[in-house]
């Protein structure tokens, strides 16, 4: 099916003195018809790039240098446009927002079938049955923007289903899905008579034994191996096993602050048309002190972001109060004391270089002389593995997350709320970011839906159960 040899790809560098390192480096891969293969790779290892190259979408729409040869079913992949592959190879993107095109779920499934010229009767029945198989019947006329993350992923899978192409290239397809749907997807992959290529960065125990071939994508090269060897190598690469608690340093003497939220009740807006009516999120007692790492754990849609937005002063709460150092705090004061690192790091980026982004955070700090400012900026950049002259919008996702953390580090807030840090960066990188933020004495609230990650990194954990936020001891 796919014959890839000597593939190298380097993203074009903008505004830097240095060029980017190649993402893929002399990569070889042969995929035979009917094979199902699993490619494990840490975040930013080039999985999405490779997936898109295999569907002839890169470098067509992304500037970069590509070398080597890729053939699909014997033909060079770029010999004609990507539309030639519509009925032969389907890509499932990691982020559904990248692929969604239409204003209703039915239209989303119908669009590729319309492109293929499928006749109307068959088209309509394909749409209905695909949505039915992924339990999205009720969402037929619903706007995909109103669906939850998991539902959007299922919508992409329904589209893939309806097209019925013999080859599937799936980039982190199990992300966002809950247990039931992950099992369902796995069984679909196993049942499929065509070729399936799955990229993943979390090796779930659920995959065990399901694939024909296993690969590790690391440093731009693919290494083949049997399941055990590849999984072991992957764990090493992403530093999954680490014991954090003992290595969290004792916080040097800083001013110690406390943030206490009591008797909060917040109206949690309906996140998706399929979820229940708006409910009230109650927080009887939530507290954090300087230097602590506290986790807030709960499934998607349980209200973690809702509570966070109130804690950092963005939203009001209906009742209750939040105190900083035992003095009640209004929303404006909260905003200047509690930083909130959004899951998407791109919400704050607008300047041409890392240096300017870091410098912008310092403009309100009057006490710094020019030279001190520059030193602080450079030191911060080094701490977060950033190059001062890099252009933020074209850095890799992991680097943008580091920049986001660096911007807040330099702001030196007493408390930070970090939203879903572990998705999109390696555990090791996440741990490092938390340590760095903590090193200036800040208290950190980590939002995650991964309780294993929470166990490893947090001293205390709050969970959200039926709309109530409670401190909980997670089973060791």
């Amino acid at each position: 099916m796919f014959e890839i040899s000597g593939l190298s790809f380097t993203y074009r560098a903008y505004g830097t003195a240095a060029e980017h390192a190649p993402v893929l480096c002399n990569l070889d891969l042969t995929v035979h018809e009917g094979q199902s293969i699993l490619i494990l790779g840490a975040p930013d290892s080039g999985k999405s790039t490779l997936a898109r190259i295999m569907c002839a979408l890169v470098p067509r729409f992304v500037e970069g240098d590509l070398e080597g040869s890729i053939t699909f079913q014997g033909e060079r992949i770029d010999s004609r446009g990507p539309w030639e592959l519509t009925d032969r190879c389907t890509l499932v993107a990691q982020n559904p927002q990248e692929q969604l095109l239409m204003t209703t779920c039915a239209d989303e499934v119908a669009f590729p079938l319309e492109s293929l010229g499928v006749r109307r009767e068959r088209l309509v029945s394909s749409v209905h049955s695909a949505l039915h198989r992924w339990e999205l019947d009720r969402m037929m006329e619903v706007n995909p923007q109103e669906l939850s993350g998991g539902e959007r992923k299922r919508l992409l899978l329904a589209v893939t289903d309806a097209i019925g192409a013999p080859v599937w290239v799936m980039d982190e397809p199990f992300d966002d899905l809950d247990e039931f749907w992950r099992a369902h997807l796995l069984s679909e992959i196993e049942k499929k008579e065509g070729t399936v290529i799955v990229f993943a960065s979390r090796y779930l125990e659920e995959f065990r034994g399901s694939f024909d071939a296993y690969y590790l994508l690391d440093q731009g090269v693919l290494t083949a191996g049997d399941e055990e060897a590849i999984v072991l190598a992957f764990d090493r690469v992403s530093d999954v096993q680490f014991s954090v608690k003992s290595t969290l340093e004792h916080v040097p003497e800083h001013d110690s602050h406390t943030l206490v939220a009591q008797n909060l009740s917040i109206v949690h807006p309906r996140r998706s048309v399929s979820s229940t009516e708006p409910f009230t999120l109650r927080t009887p007692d939530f507290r954090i002190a300087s230097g602590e790492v506290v986790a807030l754990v709960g499934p998607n849609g349980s209200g973690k972001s809702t509570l966070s937005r109130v804690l950092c002063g963005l939203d009001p709460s209906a009742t209750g109060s939040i105190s900083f150092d035992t003095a009640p705090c209004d929303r404006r004061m909260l905003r200047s004391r509690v930083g909130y690192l959004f899951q998407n790091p791109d919400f704050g980026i607008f300047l041409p270089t890392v240096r300017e982004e870091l410098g912008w955070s310092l403009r309100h700090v009057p006490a710094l002389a020019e030279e001190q400012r520059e030193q602080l900026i450079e030191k911060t950049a080094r701490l977060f593995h950033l190059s001062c002259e890099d252009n933020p919008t074209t850095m890799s996702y992991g680097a943008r997350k580091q920049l986001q953390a660096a911007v807040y580090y330099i702001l030196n807030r007493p408390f930070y709320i970090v939203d879903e840090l572990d998705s999109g960066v390696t555990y090791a990188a996440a741990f490092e970011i938390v340590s760095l933020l903590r090193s200036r004495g800040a208290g950190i609230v980590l939002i995650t839906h991964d309780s294993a990650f929470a166990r490893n990194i947090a001293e205390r954990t709050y969970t959200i159960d039926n709309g109530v936020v409670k401190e909980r001891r997670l089973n060791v």
Partner: protein
Amino acid sequence: MKSPVPEKMTALRIALMAVLTAVVVVFTLIVRVPTPIKGYISLCDVVITFAAFLFGPWVAAIAGGLGTGIADLIGGYAQWAPLSFVIHGVQGMLIALIARVGVKQGVPGDAKLPAMIAGGVVGMIVMTGGYYLAGGVLYGFEAALVEIPLNLMQSGVGLVLGIAVAKAVLKAYPPVRALAIH
């Protein structure tokens, strides 16, 4: 490994026009700045000016016209939709055409400041004049005078911020130049 450019243009152009149209809609309906004179000005003209400077006449015309038209439909001013479509469409197109004077083919982002200002001023006249004429026909030319100050202010702010934002985006996001050629 490059495909012929004309094909590449279609999907990118469609995506570009659609996204910018949506940005205009959002800026018209959500992004509003209070003014000393009663009322708000919307920042839609900032986006139209921005699109004109960076992407040329057709993209600016579609984004401006379609965007403000859709915003009128959603906002409860359906009767204005066809008029906004024409007025802001022409505004976008003219700003782009004038701003490009003296710019070589293929790099619209490098428009010169005097040309940008001239284009912006023409845009202000078109927008204010267009709404004045339309208003005049719809509800009398005397009554239509009332909206002129607000429209002038809105398009003026659009011009100033449009220039600032265009420069900022070019520096912050260099890949935009590749989009600009299409």
